[in-house]
């Protein structure tokens, strides 16, 4: 029905000669034209799917991943309790999503930059953030790398190539594109991995970051944790599409959908994405399907918007038991070893908590530091009058008045 010349013209018009054909019947592209399956290696019971290929993970790495998982679960549990006891003001658990963060971080090189949202403490722990470092941040004390300026869980560490977390959602997505652009320009064979939730993917910054990454072909992995909720808002009220993965096609970007509760699948997917990013300059969007088993944060009570039944139905798919079962069957760990490890994590966490609690807040002088590279004259004056004020009313500012000379 269409002449070759017509076809050629149409192709030229769409800029990419490969892409557009002409049709003479009105075709409405259906709302879900793509069908993207979810990659899974481990079954729920920890056995491997028949025919599925395990990623190349040695015992040491597997045990490090498992230990990090157990550690994070202990940390999360302990700090939720600490918040309830009023020892810290806020906490945010990654319960049920540990495999997504740890499996992906494990597939990176240490030099790769990680930009997180706030529920990826597993990635940070895998990188080597110490329990003391976690605690110092959570207690906003003088040893916190962030100098006590942000709320708990807003970790960051330059030495570990882990960008400091920022609360406004989605902002790190175009930043990751820019960071990766710099990596590509510098010629180092590194990439940036950027985590975000399916809720944050609604922000305009998501659109900006992904489109620009596809245009510039930068080594970035966009890792979406689709955990079904944004605070109380279920994914069904967040978007009408089939999750986040099909959006990649809209940008001309590659995509992988993976079971976020299967640490091997996450590892393998991220490894392949890293290869594409670093070796072929192909940005990749990974959508990891999981479930936020905890409340959104300690400020949230999920019973207001979902049922116990729903939670129970999801709990059976949780990632840690699955991985543990695989390790047990494989013989790389025993029940007793696993339990002992967890016990030991508990003790470490508790000891560090108690220690961090005793560290004072940062010195008052820090209040004006880092606004600029050096404090402006106006800030110095503001600090001086603040000091004079505190000296006048030391009891009103008990945390800092002791240090004001």
């Amino acid at each position, binding site marked *: 029905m269409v002449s070759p010349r017509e076809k050629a013209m149409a192709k030229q018009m769409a800029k990419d000669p490969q892409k557009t054909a002409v049709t003479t019947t009105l075709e409405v592209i259906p709302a879900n034209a793509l069908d993207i399956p979810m990659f899974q290696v481990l079954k729920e019971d920890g056995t491997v799917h028949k025919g599925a290929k395990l990623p190349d993970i040695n015992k040491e790495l597997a045990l490090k991943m498992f230990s990090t998982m157990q550690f994070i679960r202990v940390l999360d549990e302990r700090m939720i309790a600490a918040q309830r006891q009023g020892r810290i*003001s*806020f906490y945010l658990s990654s319960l049920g999503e540990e495999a997504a963060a740890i499996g992906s971080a494990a597939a990176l090189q240490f030099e790769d930059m990680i930009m997180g949202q706030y529920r990826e403490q597993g990635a940070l722990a895998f990188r080597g953030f110490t329990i003391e470092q976690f605690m110092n941040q959570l207690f*906003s*004390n003088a040893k916190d790398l962030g*100098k*006590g*300026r*942000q*709320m708990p869980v*807003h970790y960051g560490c330059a030495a570990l190539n882990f960008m400091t977390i*920022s*609360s*406004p*959602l*989605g902002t790190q997505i175009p930043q990751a594109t820019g960071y990766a652009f710099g990596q590509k320009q510098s010629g180092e064979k590194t990439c940036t991995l950027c985590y975000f939730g399916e*809720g*944050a993917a*609604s*922000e*305009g*910054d998501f659109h900006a970051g992904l489109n620009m990454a596809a245009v510039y072909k930068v080594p970035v992995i966009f890792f979406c944790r689709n955990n079904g909720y*944004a*605070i*109380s*808002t279920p994914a069904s*009220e*967040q*978007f009408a599409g089939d999750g986040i993965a099909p959006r990649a096609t809209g940008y001309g970007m590659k995509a992988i959908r993976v079971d976020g509760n299967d640490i091997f699948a996450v590892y393998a997917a991220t490894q392949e994405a890293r290869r594409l990013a670093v070796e072929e300059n192909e940005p990749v969007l990974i959508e990891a399907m999981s479930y936020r088993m905890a409340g959104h944060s300690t*400020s*949230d009570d999920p019973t*207001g*918007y979902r049922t116990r039944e729903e939670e129970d139905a999801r709990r059976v798919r949780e990632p840690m038991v699955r991985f543990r079962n695989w390790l047990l069957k494989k013989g790389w760990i025993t029940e007793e070893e696993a339990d002992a490890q967890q016990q030991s994590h508990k003790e470490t966490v508790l000891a560090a908590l108690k220690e961090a609690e005793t560290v004072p*807040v*940062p010195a*008052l002088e*820090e*209040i*004006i530091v880092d*606004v600029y590279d050096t404090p402006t004259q*106006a*800030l110095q004056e*503001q600090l001086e009058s*603040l000091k004079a*004020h*505190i000296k*006048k*009313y030391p009891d*009103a*500012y008990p*945390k*800092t008045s002791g240090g004001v000379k």
Partner: protein
Amino acid sequence: MAKMNLLQAINSALDVAMAKNDKVSVFGEDVGHFGGVFRATSGLQEKYGRNRCFNTPLVEQGIIGFANGLAAQGSFPVAEIQFGDYIFPAFDQIVNETAKFRYRSGNEFNVGGLTIRTPYGGGIHGGHYHSQSPEAYFAHTPGLKIVIPRNPYQAKGLLLSAIFDPNPVLFMEPKRLYRAAVGEVPEDDYTIPLGKAEVVQEGTDVTVVGWGAQVEVIERAAELAAKDGVSVEIIDLRSILPWDADTVAKSVMKTGRAVVSQEAPHTMAFGSEVAATIQEQCFLYLESPVMRASGLDTPYPLAHEKEYFSDHLKTYEAIKRSLNY
């Protein structure tokens, strides 16, 4: 009359507005079934249905863009931005669109039905991104109204005015007082005029100007000053845009001294406009410069929140500086 906290007063205002006019709808992140992270919209979806009280996707620029369109269509959208700190992705829609909609079209179209609600302010251990007081960022925007209540009675009366005012209104709620401020509030419909300040306490020696949660801080400072024998006149602006310079000027002409106390960082906070205008209008009456007690010129810190905050003691000291100049 009923005892309500500030949140309940907001909820009651929304309830009254929705009952009164079925073109009023409320939406935002988590405001639907859950009733909002602060529960300000609690019960409204059950009562008015999912078409009039609903969740939005997580996209502030979309919430306000959508609300602008809905208002242009003739509705009265009440859009919630979960925290004032997260209103900035919507800055373009508010400053370039909402505020200019009527003017640019020669009144062919307007978004007068729009009200944007957002909690603001510190003192809740919120750090950088759950503490900001961004009113000054919007106050440079002709076409917009900005309203901030200080207690439950005001919250309900001002919000009802805002919703049905034929101009778009940014309604900022002092989240520190959501549960802390409790007072008698009429259960029925009533309004408080926009653009008018309130003299909260009469006095003769110095005028102290504030708004929202800061008024309570000023009251404490005034008590300290009273012990020194100083009589403080307290003015609550209630509206930041357009603001009631007349009431402030009248007071300052009487007292001869003025202090502004505000939460936001010092430079270019709204107190700068108040000071600039008052020194102009009251120049010959002023016995000392208009003083400002403000937050520090830094992002909002967590561990040093107490030190950062322009509390009653700093306000009291500013009053003394004004008197002893």
